């Protein structure tokens, strides 16, 4: 008798209720990316040459990744709260599918991040973002964002399980917030000096951002799409394996 699905559903409902009772976590998640969107479009935008289109169209994909990177800090925080209180032990001493305890948090993270992403996209639309992409392209955008969110979420599970304090929990996401700056998210990589350009073009943010941009601009995605997909899937597998082994090691 495998109770994984019903148990995960119950635990998902529990954490979603947490979010519902503190919607500020979703709003805070969206505030930083929205502020960046405003800052870069209305302040720096006029000085940035990023192709012929509107800068907000160019900028949005990178902002979406930053939204996810700041959203998963709350995932780690929620898990940390369960682990440092007694409720995590209670769940683990009960006859429930043990992996459901983590999956409840992972799916909650996915839902919360998708809501934050929707908020950011709405603001971008208000700032003039337009897309001519069809349903399939938007489904592809959604698919990549879901994969990316799951990859970062499993990564966030690790500090959620191991951190000794709340500060330690949130600290891990800062480098993730910084990565988009050294990529094609804000400006094209072509103008960067050698080593920086090399790094920018070989880290995951650039292909993911380029792919998202091409998808909703209705341009062919080409090889970059596969590279983006590879990064997302690879990161997801790696983060999942690390998180599960951390869980086993710490709570054997």
């Amino acid at each position: 008798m495998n109770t994984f699905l019903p148990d995960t559903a119950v635990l998902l409902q529990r954490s979603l209720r947490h979010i519902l009772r503190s919607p500020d976590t979703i709003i805070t998640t969206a505030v930083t990316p929205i502020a960046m969107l405003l800052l870069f479009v209305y302040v720096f935008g006029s000085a940035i040459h990023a192709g012929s289109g509107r800068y907000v169209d160019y900028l949005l994909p990178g902002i979406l990744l930053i939204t996810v990177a700041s959203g998963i800090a709350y995932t780690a925080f929620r898990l940390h709260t369960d682990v440092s209180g007694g409720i995590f032990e209670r769940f683990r001493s009960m006859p429930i599918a043990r992996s459901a305890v983590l999956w409840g948090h992972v799916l909650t993270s996915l839902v919360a991040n998708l809501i934050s992403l929707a908020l950011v996209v709405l603001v971008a639309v208000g700032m003039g973002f337009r897309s001519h992409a069809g349903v399939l392209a938007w489904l592809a955008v959604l698919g990549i964002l879901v994969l990316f969110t799951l990859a970062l979420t499993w990564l966030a599970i690790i500090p959620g399980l191991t951190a000794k304090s709340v500060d330690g929990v949130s600290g891990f996401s800062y480098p993730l917030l910084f990565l988009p700056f050294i990529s094609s998210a804000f400006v094209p990589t072509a103008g960067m000096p050698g080593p920086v350009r090399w790094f920018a073009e070989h880290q995951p943010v650039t292909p993911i951002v380029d792919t998202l941009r091409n998808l909703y601009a209705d341009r062919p995605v080409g090889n970059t799409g596969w590279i983006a997909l590879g990064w997302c899937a690879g990161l997801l597998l790696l983060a999942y394996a690390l998180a599960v082994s951390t869980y086993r090691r710490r709570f054997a």
Partner: protein
Amino acid sequence: MTTTAAIEIAGLTKSYGDHAVLRGVDLNVAPGTIVALLGSNGAGKTTVVKILSTLLEPDGGSAAVNGHDVAVAPARVRESISLTGQFTAVDEILTGRENLVLVARLRHVQDPRGIAEDLLTQFGLGDAAGRRVATYSGGMRRRLDVAMSLIGHPPVLFLDEPTTGLDPQSRMEVWDTVRRLAGQGTTVLLTTQYLDEAEQLADRIAILHEGRIIAEGTIAELRQLFPPPTVEYVEKQPALEDIFLAIVGHAGTETQRTGS
């Protein structure tokens, strides 16, 4: 005895690094009895409870709960037990009722809402049922915590220092609950550092010291082993409690319940 024991521990060892916490613990607990595991801080009481509730793997020896070996059939053990840990394991953001329904649904019992209502009444939490647990007093939290552990009627209950940090009234409420459960046939293994708690509740007392059970028996049996001064100390605490309760009176109980 060996086939009917609710809890059977033999030669249990556990170390954290170089530090040997358990050095060969042997203990049998008969079904339907309350056994207190008595020991000072760091004696390894919590380690024993964690091993028995499958949260921790022992280094050596064996432990079985309700006939299921913790190493071989941890899932069967989890079906047989409930753990009330040292720190109250309640969801602060949910209401008392939601906490109970949550556990009832995870235990896959019929009618989670009905069970939640019954327990809320039974534990005097009916008025606070719709309030977030974050607003509860320490005693209310502990009562909710214990109530959550009773869902699904597990035959064996582990209570790890259930009254640490509670005021005398809340403490006695927990004691009443434990007595009632044992009356219904639940086996209770209770850890405590309070001598009077062990004396008040337990059918048998096991003293854990430096990783071993150094004495085990009924209170009468143990009394014969110990020099009189220790006994006198045991006798004193309830007396102070009587004085406290007499001074505070019934009004104190009411204040506590409504939460301040």
